[in-house]
């Protein structure tokens, strides 16, 4: 095996890991700290992804003119669509806007996800803090199905392409930078962007919790909700905001992921199980643990997918994440960085 092949899988692992970490980070804010088993977290990721699709659709809203010289599949005159943005801002600006619809969608995703998060917490989750976990599972699972089905009814079941801006098409040549020679170690630009974006969001969330008074109160609330309440601090309101932030993080993870995998209404469920595994392997109640576990599992999965490894242990690529989870949980009772007493009974 060449060094470049190994480095390539490290990059892949970091990239996968950043997706896992980002989703797990949002989940652990809700699940590991508020103590709510949120099965709708995958759906939040999926809605974020569909924000990108929505922005793309909005920007491509078109006037229809009929071109008599061409025909459509039924032999009728062809309808030519001209996006409004093109007729308003000129062709080049309009095209550029459509081209950049995924990054632009971030500006829609943040408010939409915050609102969804607030509404969800105030309208539903709030009433379930004191209910058993089993009730939380059922209600959030029901919510996840409902959200999915609404998306499916509107956007259909097939994947919808939401490509990255054309400026990011292509690969960065790590090989020539680190002196392995050109073409040896190529990595797609957008995946590098995703990794950096994930690191930025993770850093922001950590900084927010670490360096603001708000964050301090929330952290105190996680540790001992009752005492903080006795101090006359309205912890409920802060938890609502926390839930909104968690939803926004999930949504951002989703919106930037669309060029990597075209979104469909099932994208959330695909990530749901893995994100729970990541959170628990990281350790309940630990934000750092979730991020660490995300990267560990991402890198392991990448290496297990290598042909040389599969030939050595058939099927390892299918099970490596779960196998790693079992080994870690048996070796470390509370996951990588878990706190004692959180969700242990």
């Amino acid at each position: 095996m060449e060094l470049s092949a190994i480095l390539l899988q490290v990059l892949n692992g970091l990239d996968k890991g950043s997706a896992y970490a980002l989703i797990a980070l949002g989940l652990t804010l809700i699940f590991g700290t508020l103590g709510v088993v949120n099965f709708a977290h995958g759906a939040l990721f999926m809605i974020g992804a569909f924000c990108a699709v929505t922005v793309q659709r909005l920007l491509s809203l078109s006037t229809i003119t009929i071109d008599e010289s061409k025909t459509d599949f039924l032999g009728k005159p062809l309808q030519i669509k001209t996006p409004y943005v093109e007729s308003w801002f000129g062709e080049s600006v309009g095209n550029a806007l459509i081209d950049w619809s995924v990054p632009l969608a971030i500006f829609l995703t943040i408010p939409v996800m915050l609102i969804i998060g607030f509404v969800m917490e105030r309208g539903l989750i709030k009433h379930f803090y004191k209910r058993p976990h089993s009730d939380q599972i059922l209600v959030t699972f029901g919510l996840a199905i409902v959200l999915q089905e609404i998306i499916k009814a509107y956007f259909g079941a097939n994947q919808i392409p939401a490509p990255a801006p054309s400026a990011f098409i292509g690969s960065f040549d790590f090989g020539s930078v680190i002196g392995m020679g050109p073409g040896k170690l190529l990595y797609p630009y957008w995946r590098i962007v995703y990794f950096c974006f994930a690191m930025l969001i993770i850093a922001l969330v950590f900084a927010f919790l670490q360096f603001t008074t708000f964050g301090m109160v929330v952290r105190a609330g996680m540790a001992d909700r009752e005492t903080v309440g006795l101090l006359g601090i309205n912890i409920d309101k802060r938890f609502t905001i926390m839930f909104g932030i968690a939803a926004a993080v999930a949504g951002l993870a989703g919106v930037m992921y669309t060029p990597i995998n075209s979104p469909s209404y099932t994208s959330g469920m695909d990530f749901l199980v893995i994100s729970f595994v990541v959170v628990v392997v990281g350790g309940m109640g630990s934000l750092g643990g979730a991020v660490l576990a995300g990267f560990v599992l991402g890198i392991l999965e990448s290496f297990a997918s290598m042909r040389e490894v599969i030939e050595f242990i058939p099927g390892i690529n299918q099970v490596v994440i779960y196998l790693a989870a079992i080994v870690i949980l048996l070796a470390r009772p509370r996951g990588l960085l878990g706190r004692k007493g959180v969700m242990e009974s």
Partner: protein
Amino acid sequence: MLGLSRNDFLMLLFVLFLVAAAPILLNPFPEGSSLAQFNAGYPDLMQRFLIFGIFAIGFNILFGLTGYLSFGHAAFLGAGSYAGVWMLKLLTINVIPAIIVSTLVAGLFSLAIGYISLRRSGIYFSILTLAFAQMSFALASSVLQPITGGETGLQTNLNDPRILDGANTTGNIPAPSLFGWEMRESMQVPVGDWLWTFNVGYYVCAFILLIAFYISIRIFRSPFGMMLKAIKSNNERLSYTGISPRPYTLAAFVISGMYAGLAGGLMVSMDPLAGSERMQWTASGEVVLMTILGGVGTVLGPVIGAGIIKYFENIFSKINDNLLHGWFSFMPDGLEDFMVAVIHPFVGKGWHLSLGLMFMLAIIFLPGGFVGSLHNVFSRIFRKRAQ
């Protein structure tokens, strides 16, 4: 009677009545009427009600009593199914060995997984069971294909050995049977406009469900059951008394795993196919949802929950626009189209939406599930009377 208290015995009789009369009770609408679509009294669905009922009863022994939430019980259902089909293929088409062996295989499998997973509790336990089940699923659909048939599933074939029956390679694949009574045989009794179908396989399932249900009541009321409840309510205090809870939880885990295997064995006895997706996390999740929906820790709840979910899956998914137009054809055209448009998103391909909404509404308004909240209502009434 039968070692049960009067209330429990009455409940058993009630269940006996329900399952015996289900072919009649589940077909309340006359054949050919527009509401006949809601009839559930056909063999496949009735068998499914009972089989998933058994699965959920078993799951409840673990989750309802000890509070250990396993997210991997589908693995035992799957293991039981595979064992069952192999018995039908290799040994005999008679279902008895299939059912027994699938229960035992699932028992052994759950012993191994339970032994490891029970070293942790709470969410860590849940994720361990989930991980084991997902591994089983992934391996069954890929590397273990020669044993499991992969994604296509394991089926009986014409040229299977069937050692005890003596192989026949002409004609049709024999159907699973009980001493010559084929599971798919039915007796149909038309009464007026109604049609009742009494199916052999259904009554085999019914007989086994009653036994399973009876055992479950006995476990719930036994000292062993009390011990399990103690583990749920106060694990720490229990360990101060010097009692190690692990043997008890492991026993509960294995029992519930055997119930799952039994359900798997019955499933392949009714319809000889075992597919790997039976082991997927969604299948594990389904039994969790069934139990919660019906009422965690109640004896009857899981069966009810299983029935409701299977009803949605099989009945709501089959309602199409054509049928809707039929129902509302008595209305003026505009109103008819409006009604169809209103209901359309919730049925047919939208049946998942109805299911999701039902989950949410049920748990918001009925904390503790259907039977759980029924309990609450009754106890409130009785308390009032006592005052």
